[in-house]
């Protein structure tokens, strides 16, 4: 009687450990993956909120480091990991805004940093935009964050709500309030008011 050796199937390949598992296991390469996967959305949220603050890069890095250190406190699944890290980044950014606002009031800090305005053609427009970013810096932190994410970063209402961790209705209300306040403050600035009136005449 002949016997046949039955082919033994190869064992199924071990599933790749997820990023979350690797982070929890202390995999040294997981930090690089974490950075590459989430840096864009974190950067967008942070820059959207604090603008072109010299410390914005540090805030991004601090948020990712905080996530790395506190990964054992995160109990969600990997799909929620990005939102969790973004939440950390937003809290840090808002904290930064509050700190800056306090320092500004107390006279320890000058005006907010503004984007490079070299590309702006006219002197008058450059001055108006400088004033406009200064007005933006005078908004309360939560309103400023909503305003910047919506109008400067160009996020949808849903994205703003998700980034700030608030309901859609709250996000809408906050954006509206921020825009109204921005308009009021702009109207009290002589240079900006003149610039806006001029534009109205042109329109």
């Amino acid at each position, binding site marked *: 009687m002949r016997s046949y050796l039955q082919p033994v199937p190869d064992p199924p390949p071990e599933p790749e450990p997820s990023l979350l598992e690797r982070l929890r296991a202390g995999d040294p390469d997981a*930090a*690089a993956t974490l950075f590459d996967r989430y840096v864009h959305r974190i950067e967008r949220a942070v820059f959207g909120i604090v603008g072109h603050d010299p410390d914005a890069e540090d805030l991004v*890095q601090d948020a*990712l480091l905080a996530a790395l250190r506190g990964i054992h406190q995160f109990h969600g699944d990997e799909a929620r990991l990005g939102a969790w890290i973004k939440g950390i980044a937003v809290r840090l950014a808002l904290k930064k805004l509050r700190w800056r606002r306090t320092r500004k009031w107390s006279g320890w800090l000058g005006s907010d940093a503004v984007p490079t305005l070299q590309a702006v053609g006219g002197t008058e427009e450059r001055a108006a*935009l400088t004033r406009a970013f200064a007005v933006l810096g005078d908004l309360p932190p939560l309103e400023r964050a909503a305003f910047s994410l919506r109008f*400067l*970063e160009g996020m949808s209402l849903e994205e703003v709500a998700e980034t700030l961790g608030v309901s859609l209705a709250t996000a809408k209300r906050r954006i509206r309030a921020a825009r109204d306040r921005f308009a009021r403050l702009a109207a009290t600035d002589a240079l900006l008011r003149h610039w806006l009136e001029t534009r109205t005449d042109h329109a």
Partner: protein
Amino acid sequence: MHDDRSPLDALIARMSELHRASGTRGREARQVRMRTAFLTAAKHAAAQPRRSRMRWVYGGAVLLAASLLLAWTLRPRTLTVEIDEETTLAQLVFDAEEHPVTLAFSDGTRVVAAPRARVKVQRLREDGADLVLLGGTLDAELESEATVWQVQAGAYRVEASSATVTVHWKPAEETLALEVEAGTATVTGPGIASVRRLEAGERATFSSERRAVALAPTLPEAPAVALEDASAEPPKAALHRGGRDGRDGRRRARSSARASASHEETTPLPAPPEAVQAPATDWRALGRDGAYARAFAAAEAEGFADLCRSLDADALLELADVSRYARRPHRAREALETLRRRFPGTPSAATAAFDLGRLAALGNAGCADAVPWYRTFLDERGQGSMVAEARRRIAACESEPSSR
């Protein structure tokens, strides 16, 4: 191309353009920079995972140490007692020979042993003290409700808290007299079924031999004006009599003790309130027996003004005491002022000044009227056992907010 946007919207749009342009500019270089910095920091953080844990350990240790320190600081502390400003140990027996001895406890309680009283501080606790009265009179102003004080006298035990009481014990006759001026006190011992509770204004005598209890009712109510003035003065007859330095005071104390002893042998019940109106023959004897209302009525019947004119200084002090304990402060003041007019410059006049201060302290003006009298006393009497008490009362008055 025509722009339909409002100028404000156009401005915001322009800000957005600049914001985005600025964000895009140098993004790659920025991200490389951030990546390098992040990975370096991540490696550093991974290499020192224990530091974080150690920080908690250190923090916990500091917290524990702080808690222990706090617990040590707030631990219940046993009271201490001072006699003549010297800390005294428990288990020692004090003999108040010719002058009263004040035991000042660290919670503010003051217990005065009248002349010839023998007292032992049996035990000092966190919440009070146990005293043994071996004989004589103890006058206690118990300050705190949080403390419980026990006075053991023979087989009797008096317990009080936040009260003003006078305890008199005759070991030979095994007779205990307890008077409660303020608050309440309880007594247990022979002849008492369970616990006898005495309220403010009550006085009782307990005799071990006869197993009898004589309970005096509350002192009769005085007119409204008198009540207002005499609301809280403890009956310190024994202390007072002993507290007056000099031969007269000692003689008075001895005579008082004799009179008190004879009273308790016959165990008459103190007169009921209506007895105030009844005629009495010897106001001094009645006063020494503690029947102040009857003594005062007797003095009035004899003619208070005549007494003020005719009595010697020592008797005038007694008359003032009787009036005060009978809740007639205006009469007490009259007797004391007469004494000072008739016997100026004498030790009795100085004592009268002190008593006038005590009366004034209970009046409407309170400390404002009392302090000058205490100062007069100090001016006229530079030394003696009541000097410290006068200074303490001045200090207490001066520490009151209204007096600042």
